[in-house]
């Protein structure tokens, strides 16, 4: 083994030249491309994370909206239930009132009709009785007023015990 000084210097020069050439024409561009790729991957990952966050927020929002809608629907149902039952109660009360009124009216009508009938009947019976009595007792009954009073009294007794 021996060190040949010119070889030594040549190797030094050759290596330095190779280094400079590689650095300029091969590695420099390669490193910048690798850096670019790294940045690209990073930006894409950031983007993906952002999109995921957005999606999560969106889902959360949707969930809230859904919850609100459900609540509202429940409230509406509850309200309508209440209204309907109130209405039914009202209708029922109205109907009852109406029925009571009609019944009362009917009762009153019946009573008045009856009174009217009774009155009529009494009048008629009185008149008829007087006629019969006058026909029978044409001569005997002279003073009309006295006789009529007598008949009325009699008939009152009859009407009091129907």
């Amino acid at each position, binding site marked *: 083994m021996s060190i*040949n000084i010119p*070889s*030594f210097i040549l190797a*030094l020069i050759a*290596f330095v030249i190779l280094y400079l*050439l590689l650095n300029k024409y091969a590695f420099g*561009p390669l490193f910048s491309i690798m850096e*670019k790729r790294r940045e690209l991957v990073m930006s894409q990952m950031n983007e993906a994370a952002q999109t995921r966050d957005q999606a999560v927020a969106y889902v959360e929002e949707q969930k809230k909206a859904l919850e609100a809608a459900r609540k509202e629907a429940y409230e509406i149902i509850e309200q309508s239930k209440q209204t309907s039952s109130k209405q039914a109660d009202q209708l029922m009360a109205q109907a009852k009132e109406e029925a009571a009124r009609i019944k009362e009216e009917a009762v009153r009508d019946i009573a008045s009709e009856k009174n009217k009938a009774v009155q009529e009947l009494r009048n008629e019976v009185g008149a008829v009785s007087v006629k019969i009595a006058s026909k029978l007792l044409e001569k005997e009954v002279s003073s009309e007023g006295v006789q009529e009073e007598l008949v009325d009294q009699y008939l009152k007794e009859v009407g009091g015990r129907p």
Partner: protein
Amino acid sequence: MHESPIIELGGIPIDLSIVLMLIVTCVIVFVIAKLATRNLSVENPGKLQNFMEWAVEFVQNLISSTMDWKKGKHFLSLGLTFIMFIFVANLLGLPFGIVTDYHGAEHAHIFGKEIVSVKEAFEKNPELEEVGVAWWKSPTADASVTMALALIVFLLSHFLGITKNTKNYFKHYFQPYWFFFPINVIEQFAKLLTQGMRLFGNIFAGEVLISVLLKLTALGAAGWVASALGLVVWQGFSIFVGAIQAFVFTILTMVYISQMIESHDEH
């Protein structure tokens, strides 16, 4: 062993095989890197780009394992160049070799210059019949090249230590006590020496064993079989060693740099 083809150019002894192999290695590394980064794409990287990015990430992990990535990212290109250069250089000597044999000093000429090393070999031992000159070998099987690489690391790490971490750099020579100064200085040069010599030794030994295995063929048919079997096993192992040494050299580079630029105040 084979001689190196050394010629003298204006009085300077130049090893042509080293020149050749350095150029070949640099060209191969540059072509691979350039092909891999030819059609760069963020979204749809090609196979070669993927491979290159794998290598980049490998070196990134290697750097992050030794120092803070914020400080270490400046050495990514350096680490990649080291690992690719050394790996390619280690493997170049494996598949084949180019050896020329010279039967006498007067035949050893190239580009009109005489090959000094061959002449010297004949002068030293006049009985020699022929001298083989190896033209194709791993550049890292030469101590000059590996020591040059180690020197780059040495100079770079000390330069960074002095400029970026001045106080700690000078303080660490006197730790834990002032009289440790000589030991600390020796340690720095030991680092330089071991880093270069480790690489050289591994690859050189690999090539020596390959040439020894090739010489087995002189034993006849059995020698050919043994040689072929041995070469298959040893070449496979040498690929492994080449990769490991490239890795070791690079990680040591990062460790040495981190030792120089990391301050130990925070402990």
